[in-house]
């Protein structure tokens, strides 16, 4: 089983991204998935977590995610002391940043990857909504789901006009990560 932890702030769409990944893996990928938010009340701007579990077979394990294989950070101000707890050594940590090297010391036990998702979102959407950029970047970096499945999940979940824009974002995120 692969376990993915999403860091965002309330309103940034982290839980939507966790669900998109679940849809791509299960509905369009033939695997099984669970997606869930950190349970409880949410407030705009407050730090929130979301999780996706992906496996080849039905997922029975309903306990909380304790050791993540992949971590996605949509807002780098969320990388605070203690952030590294609950991440498997060597796991991929994907950060929305212009300079990922600044985290090399604090997150030395992990494979760090960076993408300037905010600029990408501004370019396509005209708004700093980075969830689909980070989702595309994770799909590209991890191989958890194919690009086709990632795009299909966006069309499953979003209305056509929004889906078109977010498809572009996923395409560009794949280009950026593969360069």
């Amino acid at each position, binding site marked *: 089983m692969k376990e993915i932890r999403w860091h965002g702030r309330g309103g940034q769409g982290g839980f939507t991204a966790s*669900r998109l990944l679940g849809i791509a893996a*299960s509905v369009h990928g033939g695997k099984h998935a669970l*997606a869930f938010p950190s*349970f409880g009340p949410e407030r705009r701007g407050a730090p929130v977590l979301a999780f996706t579990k992906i496996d080849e077979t039905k997922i*029975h*394990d*309903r*306990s909380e995610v304790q050791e993540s294989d992949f971590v996605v950070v949509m807002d780098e101000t969320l990388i605070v002391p203690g952030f590294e707890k609950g991440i498997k050594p060597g796991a991929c940590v994907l950060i929305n940043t212009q300079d990922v090297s600044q985290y090399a010391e604090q997150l030395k036990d992990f494979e760090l990857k960076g993408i300037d998702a905010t600029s990408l979102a501004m370019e396509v959407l005209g708004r700093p909504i980075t969830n689909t950029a980070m989702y595309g970047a994770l799909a590209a970096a991890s191989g958890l789901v194919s690009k086709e499945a990632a795009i299909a999940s966006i069309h499953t979940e979003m209305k056509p006009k929004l889906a078109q824009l977010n498809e572009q974002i996923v395409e560009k995120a794949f280009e950026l990560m593969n360069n």
Partner: protein
Amino acid sequence: MKNNKVFISGDEAVAQGVRLSRPHVVAAYPITPQTITVERLSEMVEAGEMDAEYMHVESEHSAISATMGASAVGARTFTASSSQGLLYMAEGLHYCSGGRWPVVMMNANRSVALPWSIYGDQRDSLSLLDSGWIQVYVEDAQEALDMIIQAYKIAEHKDVLTPMMVNLDGFILTHTYELVEIPDQEMVDHFLPAFETPNKMSFENPKNLGFSSRPDDNTEFKYQQNEAMFNAIDVIHKTDKDFADMFGRKYHGMVEEYMCEDADVVLVALGSVCGTVRVVIDKMRAEGKKVGLLKIRYMRPFPVEEVKDLAKRVKAIGVIDKDISFGYEGTVYTNVNSAISQIDKYVFKSNFVGGLGGRDITKAEIEDMYNKLYAGLENKSEETVEFFSLNVESND
């Protein structure tokens, strides 16, 4: 048949199950973590996807009253609640079962105040075992959807005519998204025909319903209610089989055994934690430990025969309770223990109380329970009741 699998939450799965069951009346008051279910239902009624009356009520007490009234005129009804809301319905729950109105309810299992908590445990519904409702507990979103459909078939059966509560763990099931197959409407219509009841309030055939009784006949009403609950056992098994024949998913009726054929040590549990127990069993089995799970699906009627049958075959039984009856032990344990006491054999027994107010139950904790059962068995211990992973000093 086209693949109709969608990635939805447990709350949404319940709403889909309700839509497919074609109730005439939905009356519910929103409460976390049930809210999404009633929001979806109200949206579906508004959009004309459901031909139902959605009654906006001012409280849970009114919700159960409205569904009872509608059921009395022969309508198929649905309500949903959780925690404090369910307890606010408590008076009506007895009224409804005594009136033999087969209302179906979804309960999102949630802790009970104080301390105030929106998170999950099973203290709400287990405190209402005596309210005369059939109670089933599900393990995932698919089972939640399927059991809503089955619930109408069971509750409305002429030999049962008893309301039914479908329980799913708050957040762990209500707010987790997973792959769920949506059954075909035509097949559901075939499986679940229109509601017919002999207890109908109508001008054509006037009857006295919801009446009072005197001491010389009350016991007989309660006796018949109890008999109806026992009648439900056969109906539950038949419904499970018919459902499997039509939809290809089997839940095994009153209980489901996992790896119990040759098991020495077994955990008994309700709801979503059963899934995590399965994962631990697979790991321990690979290490040569003969461990198993008894998933209790129905708490009322209680699976007495299934528990006795298991107790005859195994050496130690542990019960996980996301519940505590203060001054005694977990309520599931009390019920299981009562069944075990009917057989003449030493079985080491232990009650593990925890997971209260939303606390995670980890794989390590479950493995620890199995190891404690092995240790108790080896020492021929008396039964033990413990709060597991307690962060304050225990008096034991």
